């Protein structure tokens, strides 16, 4: 095999000391047992790949190097880069990746593989093209990397990541973990360009001006050896290719059509007569050898070549590729690649053969976004199919879009499916699709449409012999009415569903209804409902259906949050997040995260709450309930801290909640707006914010919201007699503020406790309220309480930051808690679990602890804690009492 020409090598590796140093440092940490993830980012052509390959070559002797490449396919292979790695290592990892396992299992197998022979360097190239399942694995891997002896290098472009790009989500998670390093790969300096240009007699200033120092562009221009400097990269690439004779050029074209790395057996089929000129292509510097394959030195060059192909030539090559890939010499055919070539050829039969199969395979491994794209691809060619087959494709696309929260597409696909079944006169298919439409329409807050479709589905399915579909349609209607807090309606339809499900032996449906009925009771404040719900959920889980388990956790989390049973809520949220994460159900994840954001807010963990809210908001998902919660949490934390941007968040929240008719969405937004207005001293605005919601809560008889809204109205000056409020608000409305504060303390809600104390007309509780608000850094509320104290003639101590200054190292109470667990030898993941923080937040705290204590490691931090007596119980207790 040939070697890369010196020019490309030199250009890509000039001025790379800093980047190589970061990689070497990461490898050093990995060798010491602490894995590192290095994100190498930069624009296309800046030399990320060349840098990584050079680094790997240098360390290949002493380390195991595993490389996976993401490909620029419109619909990437699920787990593509990991499949590369798995094929290389074989064994358990290969089995796991090939057998469509979930991302947790793949990550576990990958970790075992990385630990088996150490130290390993795992490279994932071009993550901007990665499929969803691969990004999930990287995310999971990054969380446990601290204890895995491996250096993971991920390269990605940063110049074409639009806001909705899935990689952005991963980067958001990775942004500041301790095991994570971001390294920007910079362009060449004018000096470096001069060094390269001089031997070629090219004007270095013009070269720098045209290329901006992009190494790929520079190399292409110098490689083209023309008299003039081409104006674009494309011209440079084509000029360079034009210097080759026809046969090697034809080979380039074949490689361009194949994919980023073309297997040699594939090239034998695409360009049998030209394969002999491979060395010429290597010598020209345009192609480079890869294991058993060849590829362009850079994707930009491949793209340029592919685009410059004459249409008939391109078609012929795609056709050959399609035929060859259908019968690969080893292993199973790659469905995603086949679908890609079939589409390029415009071969409807082939697209319809491969794209749906590729979609199914993608869905199995949890790459639902890719699955939806494959079904959409198939549908473009489905004109010749019968209505039944088209209906089926639309139905599947709708389901995959629903799972990935692409609701506009899901609704469109569901309508298309309904039309197909109507055309066929298939009432069952029609009823099922309308039922599905009802479920999808609810997510973006189209509650009226959802209910209309829900009733229509019941009507159609009732014409047919009763079966599981009708039981599900009853259940759906019950759910919609429960979300409108229609207690009687919800229970009636759930009961019908349950009776029918029992008759026909649909045990999971029946079980889901038992949960639904218990949930309805808790939501309306029925005593003893919580215990019953817990029992039902436990029994449901014994049935083992994944959906039922998820539904159980979700119901329990929601019920516990409304009943303010935070311990139960936390358990349900944690268990639910783990469960749905394994299933790849992004939409459900968002709901659990929304409960968690609210829980963290209520428990006074405001920084965590905004982090969790940020995770929800960083998704482009249009499902509006989680978004509404996230914006409410964000707005409230800003209001409580006295930070700017309160109304921006709360206005957006109100826009999403208005018009849904659901108290779960409307009431929390109204309460938040009332509090924010009250903190600004605008009592009228606080009353106005709650008028409509309060009326709705009274009409529907929901004790939690009646109480919460009434208390805020009272604070804003309303004098209304209130009945049917839940605790602790009922005590507050009775004027038993101190008793209410105790109840808030028992629930673990420090801010609410402080506000209750602030309403006692007495110096001692007011002082206690002020102290607590100071600890929470709740500036506006502190100001209000201080004013009340002054009216009592009390002197106000100054210094809002006294909380931090009291212990010698200046650690916050939360940091002390984290430090205590560090000193007990807990890992970050365990600390995160124990304190219900995101791993990222734990990373922040540990970073701050190390800085404040002036130490470098966790061990040193534990030693310093002992030396400074930071963790002795009486000290901590004393600080807590303060």
């Amino acid at each position: 095999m040939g070697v890369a020409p010196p020019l490309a090598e030199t250009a890509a590796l000039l001025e790379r000391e800093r980047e190589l140093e970061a990689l070497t440092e990461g490898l050093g940490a990995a060798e010491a047992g602490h894995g590192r993830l290095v994100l190498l980012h930069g624009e296309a052509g800046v030399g990320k790949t060349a840098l990584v390959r050079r680094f790997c070559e240098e360390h290949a002797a002493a380390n195991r190097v595993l490389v996976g490449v993401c490909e620029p396919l419109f619909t990437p292979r699920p787990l593509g880069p990991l499949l590369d790695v798995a094929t290389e290592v074989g064994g358990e990892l290969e089995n796991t990746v090939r057998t469509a396992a979930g991302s947790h299992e793949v990550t576990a197998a990958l970790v075992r593989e990385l630990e088996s022979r150490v130290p390993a360097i795992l490279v994932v190239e071009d993550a901007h093209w990665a499929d969803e399942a691969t990004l999930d694995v990287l995310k999971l891997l990054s969380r446990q990397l601290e204890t895995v002896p491996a250096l993971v290098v991920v390269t990605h472009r940063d110049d074409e990541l639009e806001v909705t790009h899935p990689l952005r989500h991963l980067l958001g998670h990775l942004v500041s973990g301790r095991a994570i390093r971001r390294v920007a790969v910079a362009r060449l300096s004018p000096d470096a360009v001069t060094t390269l240009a001089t031997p070629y007699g090219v004007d270095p200033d013009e070269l720098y001006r045209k290329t901006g120092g992009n190494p790929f562009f520079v190399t292409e221009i110098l490689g083209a050896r023309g008299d003039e400097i081409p104006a674009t990269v494309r011209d440079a690439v084509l000029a360079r290719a034009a210097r080759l004779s026809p046969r090697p050029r034809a080979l380039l074209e074949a490689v361009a059509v194949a994919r980023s790395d073309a297997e040699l057996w594939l090239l034998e089929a695409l360009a049998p007569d030209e394969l002999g000129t491979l060395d010429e292509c290597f010598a020209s510097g345009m192609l480079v050898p890869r294991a058993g394959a060849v590829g362009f030195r850079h994707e930009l060059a491949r793209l340029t070549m592919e685009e410059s192909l004459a249409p008939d030539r391109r078609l012929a090559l795609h056709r050959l590729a399609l035929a060859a890939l259908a019968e690969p010499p080893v292993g199973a055919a790659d469905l995603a690649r086949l679908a890609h070539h079939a589409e390029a050829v415009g071969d409807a039969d082939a697209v319809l053969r491969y794209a749906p199969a590729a979609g199914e395979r993608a869905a199995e491994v949890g790459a639902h976004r890719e699955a939806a794209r494959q079904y959409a691809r198939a549908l473009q060619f489905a004109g010749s199919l019968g209505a039944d087959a088209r209906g089926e494709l639309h139905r599947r696309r709708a389901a995959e879009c629903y799972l990935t929260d692409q609701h506009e597409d899901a609704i469109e696909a569901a309508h298309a499916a309904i039309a197909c079944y109507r055309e066929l006169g298939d009432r069952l298919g029609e009823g099922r699709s309308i039922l599905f439409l009802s479920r999808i329409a609810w997510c973006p807050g189209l509650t009226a449409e959802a209910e209309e479709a829900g009733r229509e589905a019941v009507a159609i399915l009732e014409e047919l012999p009763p079966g599981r579909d009708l039981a599900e349609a009853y259940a759906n209607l019950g759910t919609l009415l429960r979300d409108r807090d229609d207690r009687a309606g919800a229970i009636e339809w759930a009961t019908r569903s349950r009776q029918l499900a029992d008759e026909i032996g649909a045990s999971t449906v029946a079980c889901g209804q038992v949960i639904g009925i218990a949930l309805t009771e808790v939501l309306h404040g029925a005593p003893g409902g919580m215990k019953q719900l817990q029992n039902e959920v436990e029994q449901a889980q014994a049935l083992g259906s994944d959906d039922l388990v998820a539904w159980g956790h979700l119901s329990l989390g929601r019920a516990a949050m409304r009943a303010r049973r935070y311990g139960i809520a936390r358990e349900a949220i944690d268990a639910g997040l783990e469960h749905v994460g394994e299933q790849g159900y992004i939409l459900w994840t968002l709901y659990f995260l929304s409960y968690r954001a609210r829980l963290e807010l209520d428990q006074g963990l405001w920084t965590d709450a905004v982090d969790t809210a940020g995770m929800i908001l960083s998704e482009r998902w249009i499902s509006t309930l989680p978004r509404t919660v996230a914006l409410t949490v964000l707005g409230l934390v800003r209001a409580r801290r006295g930070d700017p941007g309160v109304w921006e968040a709360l206005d957006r929240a109100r826009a999403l909640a208005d018009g849904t008719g659901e108290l779960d969405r409307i009431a929390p937004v109204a309460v938040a707006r009332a509090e924010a207005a009250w903190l600004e001293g605008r009592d009228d605005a606080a009353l106005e914010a709650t008028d409509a919601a309060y009326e709705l809560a009274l009409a529907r008889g929901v004790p939690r919201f009646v109480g919460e809204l009434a208390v805020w109205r009272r604070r804003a000056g309303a004098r209304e007699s209130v009945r049917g409020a839940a605790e602790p608000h009922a005590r507050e409305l009775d004027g038993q503020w101190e008793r209410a504060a105790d109840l808030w303390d028992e629930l673990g809600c420090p801010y609410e406790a402080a506000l209750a104390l602030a309403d006692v007309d007495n110096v001692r509780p007011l002082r206690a309220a002020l102290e607590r608000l100071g600890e929470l850094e709740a500036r506006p509320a502190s100001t209000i309480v201080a004013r009340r104290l002054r009216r009592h003639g009390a002197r106000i101590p100054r210094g809002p930051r006294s909380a931090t200054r009291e212990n010698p190292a200046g650690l916050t109470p939360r940091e002390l808690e984290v430090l205590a667990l560090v000193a007990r030898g807990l890992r970050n993941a365990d600390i995160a679990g124990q304190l219900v923080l995101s791993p990222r937040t734990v990373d922040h705290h540990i970073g701050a602890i190390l800085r404040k204590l002036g130490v470098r490691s966790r061990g040193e931090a534990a030693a310093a804690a002992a030396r400074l007596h930071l963790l002795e119980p009486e000290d901590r207790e004393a600080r807590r009492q303060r």
Partner: protein
Amino acid sequence: MRLNTYVILRRSGWRSPEDLGAAAERSRKVGDEEMPDDVRWIRSYVLEEGGGSVGTVCIYQATSPEAIRRHASMADLPVDEIVAVADTVIVRPDPAPVAA
């Protein structure tokens, strides 16, 4: 992401100019190395707070007030108040820095 401009008050944050110097270095390091996309430190005015202690008024650009607070917590800087800047009116350039 869009960057907004904020004024951050850190009153009586440090016992001495030396402490402030160390904090400034942490601030720069965290900002430039750990969250370059989220915060940009523009400039600061150091306040005499009596008894040798100092505070600051800082001008930052950031994606959100939460980013300002995360930066502060990572660099161990106090935050008393964050105010969003609606507009900037520059009458004269800043005077030459005076030694603290």
